Every structure is written in structure tokens, then in C-alpha cells.
């Protein structure tokens, strides 16, 4: 489909660019504020190929497109000269608040998110195989091992290809060109050249051999550069040939650019790091241990860890042992500890299962699922694991632990550490693991779920009901909510909270009257008849239940402060939605609703006061509420 033509038609049929006040889009809809809705030819728009339907709601003229909405919006915005486009994505505002590092970490974990499950599966397969070999059940020469190993390792070996796909989607560049670029980096001929340490030239520019298999950063940087070049090429080539010429020139430019600049940049940083760490080890082994224990996984993320391999190999061939490898195992195990901490603490089923399985894989030396799925994603556990790794690493380094042969760092490498300093590795490993777990459990992430503190039921004094806040955060007036339906109080009066926690608690004692299948809204009828609606986020119905977990059932009796819903605040705002929580009294006409004057809502703090306007405050709906 030609989205440009569609955009042009829509623009004409809504009355041209002069009729557009503002326009933006959400996940599936173009949303217009039109100066005059009567100028829009709704029927004509609905009949356009690519338009699902038109919805007129809340003063907005919404054209439902589906997933391709951004592709229609971009040319439309260009044609209509929309300069200050309000994007429904609050990303912009939140991103400017975040520092560059946080955004970078956010980007990295978001490109891993789509394939976390598959990555964990492949990681477990690899771990099991390593275990079977260690137990002597399989030999590395057997066909079964080789086939399963290829299945498990293929994912990690060709990680740049998978990353190209998700990063391209995130950065809105041609996914297949990005994948083609990634396949270039891991192309067998080029991999063989790197392995033989030959140097090749690109015309007269030397290409420094760099390992790209299993790497993360080079391809992400490459796709990022590509996202800057692709639009330029699109502008140069006329539409009729763009389809072929943009990819062609992207590959012509990007492949050498990546191989000559991006990859070697990482490699030379790595070389400095590895020689630096070795130098430090010579005069202060414990310090080198602490540094390596703390930063090894950071090196892994940036793909500069490969430069340590020759250093270690060299140590083993020259000295007969390497002092760095045991420290790496400590670093790896600290991540496993942090993942265990997350597993123990998280109430989110998805995170719990991922964290649980990634403990096992990390112990066996596969840390990708742990880092990208769990610790780095939550940020703080990663830092805590690094602290634990530093302390454990200092012990192993200070104890002058040695590895007698080169084995990838994990618990399975323990036999190679036998000999002098072995006890210090063991202590270092235990300290790193336990500390990683405990620190993460204690400080890992803001508390999720379930502390059932006993709270006195709200008082019904002279027909007065007190409601506590459903979530902690900043209190804002309902009229400031960026959704007309709530802001206009059409649903009833209430209050909004910008949450800083991920658990919704019941503001009243009562009965759950409405559980929406998508989990983003919940209704409660208080024991005194107030109809309380809690709506989590704006337009979050579109998430279709993703990131929400309802903890109660329809008709269930709940007490004040009981946990009702868990939601993944970070993921929801990353998906582009406003996470403001609205607390609405849907039978407002029965009450005088008074909002607290506080601006912050702490745990279980009172937020609304309802005073009955009439004696009879029975719910206004008829019929029994039944479980659906």
C-alpha cells in the first residue's frame, strides 16, 4: 500500500490542511482536532483502502488505521506542515528528563524485549548441554551435542541479526536492510578472515579484524547511523526507484562504514581496557579483581570483552595460568545472584519466571537473558550485581586465584581453578552470589505488591466516606488529565495520580463490581454504596492486557489497601502511554466529592472524601453483579 497516497487522501477528505487544528497519532489511530468537523467527509474516508473506520469522540476526529498508522502520519504531517505535532507519546517529555545513559539503557533493553523468551529458551538449552558434558552424559564430539549446541548457540552467535531486526523496528528503518547489514558482519568469509587475524583493506583503508558474532553494540550503532542516512537517500531517489536504490546505497555505505569505523572503535577501546586491567593486576591484584568483577558485564554489553580473550590465552600459554578468568566467573555469578533477588522479590509472573530461569542459565555461564531480560532492564539490580561482583572479584583477585585452562566463565569452569588460590575463588563466588541476591532483594527495585498492612476501615461518620489513594505518587486535578472523557468529569468527579509505584490498592472496603479483561480498569462498590472506578493510564485499553495483572475477581470482597492490580509502569510508558491513574466516583450525583489538598499521595494516605447528598446511597444500577 502506498501510505503517502492514503495520507494525501485523508488530508483532503478531512478538509485540507487549513481545517486541521492539531493532529497526532496513537498506536492505531490518526487523531485530529479539526476546526470544523463538518468539512470532513467521513464516508469518503471510511471507504479509503487502509482506513478501518472513523471515530468521532471527545472532540477528536479519529481515523483508525491500525499498526501502519505512523507510516501514514509521517507523510501527512509533512504535507500538512504540522510543525508542533503533539505526539501522544509522552516519550519526549520523559526522555528529556532522563539522562543519556538511562535512555541508552532503555533503548538496549527495548530491543531485547521482543525476543526475551526465545533467548531464555536458547540459553537454557546451552546451559543444559554444558551441564550434560560436565556430567559426562554427552561428549562434545557427539552428533546430538553438536546439533543441540547449534540450536542453542545459534541464537547468541547470530545475535546481531536478531538485534538488527528489533532495532530497525524501533528506529523505524527498513528492517530487512538492517538484517542484511547484520548478516554482513557475521558473514562466514569475513568471520574466517578475522579468525585468521588477516588484515584486509577497503581500497586503501585497513579494516581492523573485529569479532562481531554475539556482539550487541556494533549493530545497534550501525542501525542508528542507518536511521540517519536512510531518510536522506529516500529524499535523493525518486519514488519509482527508491524501493531498490535506497537499500542498495545503504548497503554500499553502511557495510564498510561499520566494518572500518564502528567495530574497530569498540575493539580499540577494549584493547586499552584489557592491557590496563592486566597492568593493574601486576601491582594490585585485589583492585584489578574489583574492577573486573564490577565492569565485566558492562564490557560484555559493549562487546569489548572479546579483547580480553587473547590476553588470557597469552597468559595461559606464557605463564601456564591466567589470573583473570576466575574473576570473570565471579562477575557472572553476581548477575545470577541479582536475578535470584529479582525472582524472590518480584510479584510480576512474567518477570518472576524470566528471572528464575535466568538464575540457572547465568550459573552455567549464559548471562544474556539475565542481563537484558532482568537486571539491566530493571537497572538497579545490574548495578547491585556489579557491586557484589566487585567485592567478590576483589577476594578472588586478592587471593591470586588462577585458571589453568581457558574455559568460559561459569560454575562449570570451577575444576580449571583448582590449585593455588582456589579457596579465594570459592569465597569470592559465594560472596558475589549471596550479596547480589541480598542487595537486590533489599534495594533492587521499588517494592511491588503485597504488603497487607492492617488499615482501619474508612469511617462512615454522618454519611462521610474516606477513600485512600489507590497508588502512591503525585496528585493532580482530574481536569488536568490528558483525556477529555476523564478531564470533563463526564464519568464522575475524582482525582488523578501520577504513579510512582506499580500496585493499585483498594481505596475502600467493598465488592469488586467490574473487572475489565484488559486489566487496566477496575470498579469497586464500597460497602456504603459509592461506585469507585480506578482507571490505570490513558488509552491503555489498547494494550490489551499486556503489562497488567488483575489480582482480584468480580464480586470478590476487598478490604481497604488490598492489592487489586499490578501494572508495569515503565513498560507502559515505554510503549508510549500516559500512566496517570484516575480515581473516579461514577455515581457522583449522590455525593459531594472533596479532593485532598496534598500534592503527594503516600502509602495509604487519604485522598477523597465523599459526603452523601441523600439518605439513600444505594447503588443506582439494577440487577446483580455477576462474575463474567
Amino acid at each position: 500500500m502506498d501510505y503517502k497516497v492514503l495520507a494525501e487522501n485523508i488530508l483532503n477528505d478531512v478538509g485540507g490542511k487549513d481545517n486541521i487544528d492539531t493532529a497526532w497519532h496513537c498506536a492505531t489511530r490518526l487523531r485530529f482536532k479539526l476546526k470544523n468537523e463538518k468539512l470532513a467527509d467521513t464516508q469518503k474516508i471510511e471507504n479509503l483502502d487502509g482506513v478501518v473506520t472513523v471515530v468521532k469522540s471527545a472532540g477528536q476526529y479519529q481515523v483508525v488505521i491500525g499498526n501502519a498508522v505512523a507510516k501514514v502520519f509521517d507523510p501527512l504531517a509533512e504535507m500538512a506542515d504540522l510543525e508542533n505535532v503533539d505526539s501522544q507519546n509522552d516519550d519526549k517529555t520523559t526522555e528529556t528528563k532522563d539522562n543519556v545513559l538511562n535512555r541508552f539503557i532503555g533503548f538496549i533493553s527495548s530491543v531485547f524485549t521482543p525476543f526475551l523468551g526465545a533467548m531464555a529458551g536458547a540459553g537454557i538449552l546451552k546451559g543444559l548441554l554444558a551441564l550434560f558434558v560436565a556430567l559426562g552424559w554427552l561428549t562434545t564430539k557427539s552428533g546430538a551435542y553438536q546439533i543441540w549446541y547449534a540450536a542453542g548457540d545459534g541464537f547468541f552467535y547470530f545475535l546481531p541479526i536478531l538485534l538488527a531486526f528489533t532495532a530497525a523496528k524501533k528506529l523505524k528503518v527498513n528492517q530487512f536492510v538492517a538484517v542484511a547489514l547484520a548478516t554482513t558482519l557475521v558473514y562466514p568469509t569475513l568471520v574466517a578472515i578475522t579468525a585468521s587475524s588477516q588484515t584486509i583493506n577497503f581500497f586503501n583503508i585497513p579494516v581492523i579484524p573485529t569479532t562481531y558474532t554475539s556482539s550487541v553494540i556494533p549493530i545497534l550503532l550501525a542501525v542508528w547511523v542507518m536511521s540517519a542516512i536512510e531518510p536522506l537517500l529516500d529524499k535523493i531517489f525518486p519514488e519509482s526507484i527508491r524501493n531498490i536504490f535506497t537499500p542498495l546505497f545503504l548497503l554500499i555505505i553502511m557495510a564498510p562504514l561499520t566494518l572500518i569505523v564502528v567495530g574497530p572503535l569498540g575493539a580499540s577501546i577494549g584493547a586499552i581496557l584489557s592491557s590496563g586491567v592486566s597492568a593493574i593486576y601486576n601491582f594490585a591484584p585485589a583492585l584489578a579483581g574489583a574492577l573486573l568483577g564490577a565492569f565485566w558485564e558492562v564490557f560484555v554489553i559493549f562487546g569489548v570483552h572479546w579483547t580480553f580473550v587473547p590476553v588470557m590465552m597469552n597468559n595461559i600459554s606464557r605463564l601456564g595460568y591466567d589470573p583473570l578468568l576466575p574473576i570473570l566467573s565471579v562477575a557472572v555469578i553476581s548477575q545470577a545472584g541479582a536475578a535470584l533477588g529479582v525472582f524472590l522479590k518480584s510479584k510480576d509472573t512474567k518477570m518472576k519466571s524470566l528471572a528464575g530461569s535466568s538464575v540457572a542459565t547465568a550459573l552455567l555461564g549464559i548471562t544474556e537473558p539475565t542481563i537484558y531480560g532482568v537486571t539491566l532492564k530493571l537497572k538497579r539490580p545490574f548495578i547491585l550485581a556489579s557491586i557484589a561482583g566487585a567485592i567478590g572479584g576483589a577476594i578472588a583477585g586478592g587471593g591470586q586465584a588462577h585458571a589453568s585452562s581457558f574455559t568460559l566463565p561459569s560454575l562449570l569452569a570451577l575444576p580449571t581453578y583448582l590449585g593455588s588460590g582456589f579457596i579465594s575463588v570459592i569465597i569470592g563466588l559465594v560472596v558475589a552470589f549471596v550479596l547480589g541476591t541480598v542487595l537486590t532483594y533489599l534495594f533492587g527495585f521499588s517494592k511491588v505488591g503485597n504488603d497487607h498492612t492492617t488499615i482501619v476501615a474508612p469511617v462512615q461518620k454522618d454519611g462521610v466516606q474516606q477513600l485512600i489513594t489507590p497508588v502512591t505518587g503525585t496528585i493532580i486535578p482530574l481536569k488536568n488529565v490528558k483525556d477529555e472523557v476523564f478531564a470533563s468529569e463526564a464519568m464522575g468527579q475524582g482525582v488523578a495520580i501520577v504513579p510512582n509505584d506499580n500496585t493499585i490498592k483498594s481505596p475502600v472496603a467493598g465488592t469488586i463490581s467490574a473487572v475489565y479483561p484488559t486489566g487496566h480498569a477496575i470498579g469497586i462498590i464500597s460497602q456504603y454504596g459509592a461506585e469507585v472506578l480506578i482507571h490505570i493510564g490513558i488509552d491503555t485499553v489498547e494494550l490489551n492486557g499486556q503489562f497488567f495483572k488483575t489480582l482480584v475477581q468480580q464480586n470478590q470482597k476487598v478490604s481497604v489497601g488490598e492489592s487489586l492490580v499490578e501494572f508495569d509502569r515503565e513498560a507502559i510508558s515505554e510503549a508510549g502511554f500516559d500512566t496517570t491513574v484516575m480515581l473516579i466516583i461514577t455515581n457522583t450525583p449522590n455525593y459531594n466529592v472533596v479532593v485532598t489538598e496534598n500534592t503527594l499521595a503516600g502509602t495509604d494516605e487519604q485522598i477523597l472524601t465523599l459526603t452523601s447528598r441523600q439518605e439513600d446511597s444505594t447503588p443506582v444500577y439494577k440487577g446483580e453483579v455477576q462474575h463474567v
Partner: protein
Amino acid sequence: MTQSKDFHIVAETGIHARPATLLVQAASKFTSDVTLSYQGKDVNLKSIMGVMSLGVGQGADVTIKTDGDDEESAMAAIVEAMETEGLAE
């Protein structure tokens, strides 16, 4: 004579907060009793919480009944609300 009409919900998010509010607003303008039936349960269409308690999703078939002095215009207003919201056919 009670008015009754069946609707097939097409909106991908079903009758959620926003559409529920608009339906309730439409129904509340009239004195007639307005009932929404879904899977054998009846609720008052003038109550947001009542409507939302049904959890009506996409693809659901619901019946709306109006009964009272202005039942015909009430039904017309509801049909209009359903259509302008793209809720049902």
C-alpha cells in the same frame, strides 16, 4: 410497548470506560428505563459501573431495551451513540 434492539459490538476494545460513559450519558437524558442485557445479565444503562461490570468485549452481542414515555427517542439516541462511537453495528 418496550423497544428492544440487538447490537453486535465491533469496537476492538469493547464497551470500555469511554464508550460506556457516552452510552450512559445518552441514556440518562431520558426518563425511560434503559437496560443492557449481555449473557443473561441485565444492567441499568444509566450506570457506568453497571455497564462496565459486564465487561462487554469485541464481538459480543448485546440487547438494549428502553421502556417508558420516551422509549423511542431514547433508543434512537443510543443507536446514534453506538454509531458515532463506532461501537456496534
